[in-house]
C-alpha cells in the first residue's frame, strides 16, 4: 500500500498528489513515469512523475480527470492508500549541455510532464524557453514553477482568456520564423497537440521529441498494447520510450489506438458517477 500524503485540487480537472513511494523517489529521473492501480478492482494506469523528494521518500504527480480511474483518484484524499505504485518506468530523458536553446512545450496536464525535463535542462546549463498551452484561464497550472527557472515563459489559451489567444503552435511559429537558435524541442500534451507541433517543426528540421501517452497495462514490455509506429517500425512506448523523435511518429495510429475502448470507458465512468452521485462531467479533452 502506498499512502497519499497530500492532495490538492490545482484546477477544476487536475489534482496534485504527493505519495509515499520511497524507492521510486530515490531512483526516478525526469521523463519517467509510474503505473498506479488504485485498488483490487482497479485498472493499471501510467502517470508521469512530476517531482520527487528523495529525503521524504515521496513522489509528486498531477492527474487529470478523464475517465473512471482518474476521476476516482480525484476523490481520494491525504491518508488514503493506493494499492500499487510501480516504477520508475520508461527511459529517463537524455539531457546534456546543448549548443542552442531548448524549447519546452506543454499542453494542459502535459505541463507536469515537461516540468522535470525542462528543469533538468536548465540545470545542465541550457537556455530554456517554455510555451504552455491551455484551453482557458481556469485550467492554467504550474506557470509559477516554470517562471521560477525558465529563461522565458509564454502562455497561450485556446479562448484567449489568459496569455495569448491560440495554441502552443501559434506561439512557437513566431519563434521559428524569427530563426531562434533552437537545439531541441520537447513537447508533451494531448497526441493531437504533439502532432501539430511536429508538423510545424518538420519544415524547420528541428529535433522534436515527444512523450507518447499510449494505453498501457503492465508497462514493462510484456503486453504490447502501447505499441506505436516510429519510423515505420513497431515500438513499445513503455520500454523503448516514452519519448521518441516526433517527426517519425505515426500520430494517426496513436490517436486511433487511444480510442480503442471509448465505449467501455464511457460505461465505466457513468456507472461510477451514478454510484457516487456526482454530476461532474469531465472536460472532453480526450484525444479522440
Amino acid at each position, binding site marked *: 500500500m502506498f499512502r497519499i500524503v497530500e492532495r490538492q485540487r490545482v484546477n477544476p480537472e487536475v489534482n496534485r498528489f504527493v505519495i509515499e513511494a520511497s524507492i521510486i523517489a530515490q531512483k526516478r529521473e525526469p521523463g519517467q513515469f509510474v503505473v498506479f492501480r488504485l485498488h483490487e478492482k482497479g485498472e493499471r494506469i501510467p502517470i508521469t512523475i512530476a517531482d520527487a523528494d528523495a529525503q521524504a521518500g515521496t513522489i509528486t504527480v498531477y492527474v487529470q480527470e478523464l475517465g473512471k480511474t482518474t476521476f476516482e483518484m480525484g476523490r481520494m484524499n491525504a491518508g488514503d492508500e493506493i494499492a500499487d505504485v*510501480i516504477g*520508475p518506468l520508461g527511459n529517463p530523458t537524455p539531457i546534456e549541455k546543448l549548443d542552442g536553446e531548448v524549447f519546452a512545450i506543454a499542453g494542459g496536464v502535459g505541463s507536469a510532464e515537461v516540468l522535470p525535463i525542462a528543469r533538468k535542462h536548465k540545470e545542465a546549463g541550457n537556455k530554456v524557453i517554455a510555451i504552455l498551452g491551455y484551453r482557458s484561464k481556469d485550467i492554467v497550472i504550474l506557470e509559477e514553477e516554470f517562471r521560477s527557472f525558465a529563461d522565458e515563459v509564454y502562455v497561450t489559451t485556446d479562448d484567449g482568456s489568459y496569455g495569448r489567444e491560440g495554441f502552443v503552435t501559434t506561439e512557437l511559429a513566431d519563434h521559428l520564423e524569427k530563426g531562434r537558435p533552437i537545439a531541441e524541442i520537447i513537447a508533451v500534451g494531448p497526441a493531437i497537440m504533439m502532432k501539430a507541433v511536429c508538423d510545424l517543426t518538420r519544415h524547420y528540421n528541428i529535433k522534436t521529441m515527444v512523450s507518447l501517452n499510449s494505453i498501457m497495462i*503492465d508497462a514493462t514490455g510484456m503486453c504490447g*498494447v502501447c505499441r506505436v509506429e516510429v519510423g515505420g517500425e513497431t515500438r513499445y512506448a513503455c520500454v523503448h520510450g516514452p519519448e521518441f523523435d516526433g517527426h517519425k511518429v505515426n500520430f494517426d495510429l496513436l490517436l*486511433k489506438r487511444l480510442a*480503442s475502448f471509448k465505449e467501455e470507458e464511457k460505461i465505466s465512468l457513468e456507472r461510477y458517477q451514478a454510484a457516487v452521485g456526482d454530476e461532474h462531467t469531465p472536460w472532453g479533452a480526450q484525444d479522440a
Partner: protein
Amino acid sequence: MPDTKIPRQAMPKQRPKERIRNFNEVALGFSAELAQKEAERCIQCKKPFCIEGCPVEIDIPVFIELVAEGDFESALAKIRETNLLPGVCGRVCPQEEQCEIVCVLSKRFEPVAIGRLERFVADWEIREGKMDVPSVAPSTGHKVAVVGSGPGGLTVAADLARLGHKVTLFEALHKPGGVLVYGIPEFRLPKAIVARECEILEKIGVELKLDFVVGRTATVDELFEMGYEACFLGLGAGLPWFMNIPGENLVGVYSANEYLTRINLMKAYLFPEYDTPIRVGERVIVIGGGNVAMDAVRSSLRLGAKEAHIIYRRSRKEMPARDEEIENAEDEGVIFNFLLNPVRYIGNEAGRVKQVELLKMELGEPDASGRRRPVPIEGSEYKMDVDTVVVAIGNGANPLVPSSTPGLETNKWGYIVADAETGKTTKKGVWAGGDIVTGAATVILAMGAGRKAARSMHEYLTTGEW
C-alpha cells in the same frame, strides 16, 4: 491389489454448453472414491519409468499407492518432497508427454492418470482446510534475491528458504505467480490455487516484494549493493512476438499476452465490476496452435464471441497444444482452421480491424524442428471478416534486465545464457532458469531449472566458491 481391468477414470467436467458461459474451472477433479479407484490401476512397476518421465522425479508409484490406501495426507507429503506446486502441475503439466507417456500400462491399456491423482491430493488438502507448511532449517544469515515469481522463481525461493537462507522474491506485477496468474485462465487453473502456494512461501519466511521491476526500480547490481549475495533470474519469456505484417497495429489486434492479461490478471471478464475493459465482438480469430492460443480462443467464447477460430499454419497433428485442451476447445465449439496463415489485416476508418487476408498453406519437407514446414500456396489468398484478432505465435525475451546488467550474457535471441546443470550465468553470483533461458517451455521444466539452481546457489552461499 492392482486391477488392470478397471478403465482409466474419466475426469468429471462442466458441460460444454454451461462452461462457455462462465470462467469456473472446466475439469472438476476426482472424488476420493474415483481417485482411489484410479490409483488401484497402478501395477507398482519394479522399474517405474514414470519417475524418469517427470522432470522433478516425483516418487509416483509410492504416492499412488498411498492414494489407493486412502492415506491422502502421506501421499501429498510424498509429492511435496520433490514438487511444491502439485495443485498447479496436476492441472497444467503436459502429462501425456511426460510421466504418463512412459507408463507401462499405456502399451496395452490407458496410462494411469498420474496428473489427475496429483491434482486430487493437492485439492484434498484444501478441502480439508489444512495447510502443510514445510519445516525450515535454522537461519544461515545469507540473503538471496529471486527475481520473477513464476514457477521457476517460486521453486528457487522455496528451496532456499527451507535451507535457512533469507529470500526476497521480487515481482514486477502486483500479484505473484507469473504466467500462472496473468496467462493461464481461471477455467484451467484457479488463481486461488496459485495464491495459496504463494501464501505457503510467505509462511516459511520468504519476503514478497511486488510492484518491483528489476532493471528499473533497482538493477541487479543494486540488489547486490543492498546486501543480497546471490540472485536468481526467473524472468520468463514475456515479450510478445508479432508477425510484422500490414495492419497488425490496428485496434482490435491483441497480443495473446495483452488479451490474457486483461482477462486473467485484470479480470476484464468481470468488467465493469472490474475497471479493465476488453472488447471481443462477434468473430474472434486466434493465430497460433499452442496452449496460449487455446487459452485465448476458449476465453473468447466465454466473453461472448459467437464464433471463435483457431488459425494455424500447419495441420492438427503438428499443433503444440496439449491434446486435452484441444479436445476441450473442440467440445466448446471452437472452429479450427488448418494450413492457413494471415498475410495482412484490413481496418475501417476508425482504425479498427475488420478483415483478415488469409493464405493457404501445404506441408513441405520437415524443418529444423522436425515438423513439416508449411509452404504457401500461391494465389490462394482470401478474406474473412473479423472483429478481433489475437496473435499467439510465441514470446521472446524481455530485454529490461539483460540490458541493465553488465556482464550478463545473452544469446542471439536475447535469452540469458546459463549452464544447464547449475543455472549459473556468465555473471558471478547470478543464476537464471525457466523460460528466460530455454524460451517458452513448461511449468514443470521451469521448476526443474529452479531446483537445480537452488542447489548450486546453496553450494555457493555455503562455500563461497563460484
